[in-house]
């Protein structure tokens, strides 16, 4: 009985976690679940090689906090370098953002990093 109550209490306490749903859906949207945040993002398909592109994303905090000043970066861990450009992030309102100024200058595996509320969430982006 005690165990069931504890499970119920834990479920109630973690309820806001399941409520964190970044407002971006549809074809091509990918999701990264972090410990404190969730990011959903969509890049053009295919990702253009050595050409500027923009990336749409949405983020939410499991705590319910508002997302302020998120950052986006891309690196090539295999070769130890990042982009030659620093992306800028524009807020579209309602937890949605657009990152501009991305340019992946080499084919291969890039690591895309979203820094939101002090947490960095990563995904892999492959460029042919």
């Amino acid at each position, binding site marked *: 009985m005690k165990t069931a109550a504890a499970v119920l209490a834990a479920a109630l306490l973690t309820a806001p976690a399941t409520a964190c749903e970044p407002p971006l859906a549809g074809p091509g949207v990918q999701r990264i679940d972090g410990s404190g945040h969730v990011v959903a993002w969509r890049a053009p398909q295919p990702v253009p090689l050595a050409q*500027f592109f923009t990336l749409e994303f949405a983020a939410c905090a499991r705590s319910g906090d508002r997302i302020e000043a998120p950052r986006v970066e891309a690196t090539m861990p295999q070769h130890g370098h990042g982009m030659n450009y620093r992306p800028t992030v524009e807020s579209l309102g309602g937890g949605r953002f657009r990152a501009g100024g991305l340019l992946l200058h080499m084919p291969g595996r890039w690591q895309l990093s979203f820094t939101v509320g002090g947490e960095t969430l990563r995904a892999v982006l492959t460029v042919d």
Partner: protein
Amino acid sequence: MHRLHHALLLVALLVAAPCADAALLDFSAQERQQIVSLGPWPPRIAPDPSNRVSGDAEAIALGARLFFDARLSPSNRIACVTCHQPDRGWTDGLPRARGMEELERNTPSLANLRQRRWFGWGGGADSLWMASLRPLLDPREFASSAAAVAALYARDADLACRYRRAFGRAPAEERGGEESVLVNTAKALAAFQETLTSGRTPFDEFRDALASGEPAAAARYPLAAQRGLRLFIGRGNCVACHNGPLFSNGEFGDVGVPYFVAPGRVDSGRHDDLQRLRASPYNLLGRHGDDGGASATATRHAVLEPRHWGEFRVPSLRNVATTAPYMHNGSVPTLRDVVLHYSTLDESRIHSSAQPLLVALRLAPEEVDELVAFLETLTDAAGADRPRPPMPAPCDPPAAQLK
């Protein structure tokens, strides 16, 4: 018996004939995808939004006149064509460019400039018009000035007439004064240079045949070049930087070429040139661009990091066989030497905190030949001997000017 032998030979030939694609290497799906990504050619070219006379026939005519005019330098010795010679693939054949004095870098070719993001070996210009303006003011190149350029129009009625046709007012009437005349002169020079494009090459024929599933046509491409291409996109990993239809990612790299220009003096390439670009009033974020900075994405987002020290722009490989000598300092005499440079690269010279992108390829002699054979197929029909554009007929002053 003799007749039977002939008959057998004939049968063998007939059987073999439909297999003309036997001369086509068994490129994998991934290789084919990479090869197709190196085209199509020629691409569609849009006017430069930062240059309001880009693509304008009057500005092109003015730019053509100016390009060949040594009076653009106060010494009357240096014209654009001094270094960018049409019969040398728009270069000069020298290791280092020579203006009023010898410079530290090799003269780059002028073909296909409209597709570029950065200009100059270190990307010191973010537009073709800025790249055309910079040498005019450099005391080692033209050693000119806004005043000297404006004075040229004042003493040449034909040039002044062309200027008026291109920009809608006489040079002397420019509200921005001599500086506006200088910037517009650079924009006319850019409009002309944008017309200098390279044509289709044997590689483009091969690429298109592969893309459209025509093995017989693809098989006409020499086998040595096919093997060289396989190295280029495969073990050589040249395509990591030399990618896309222009065979360049438009960015910068350190490929192990020494950057000492004199004892104790270095050319840091991208590192210094990006700082110079940012400090220049003529970059795309300044007031001289014609689109309010809308096309300045690269300039706005470019980052300066220590790794850019010693990096130089990845050159296009179209018509590369016609533009010797090579590398940013012209230190590599032939295309074969370029391939040998990558084959015997001093890996300790390349700074990398992770898996190095460049490793010595250690190519066999026949592989060197094949890579060179491939690179030579990136040459169009005109080759090094580009036709000199016809000079425009004398300019008739607009009717309004005669009244």
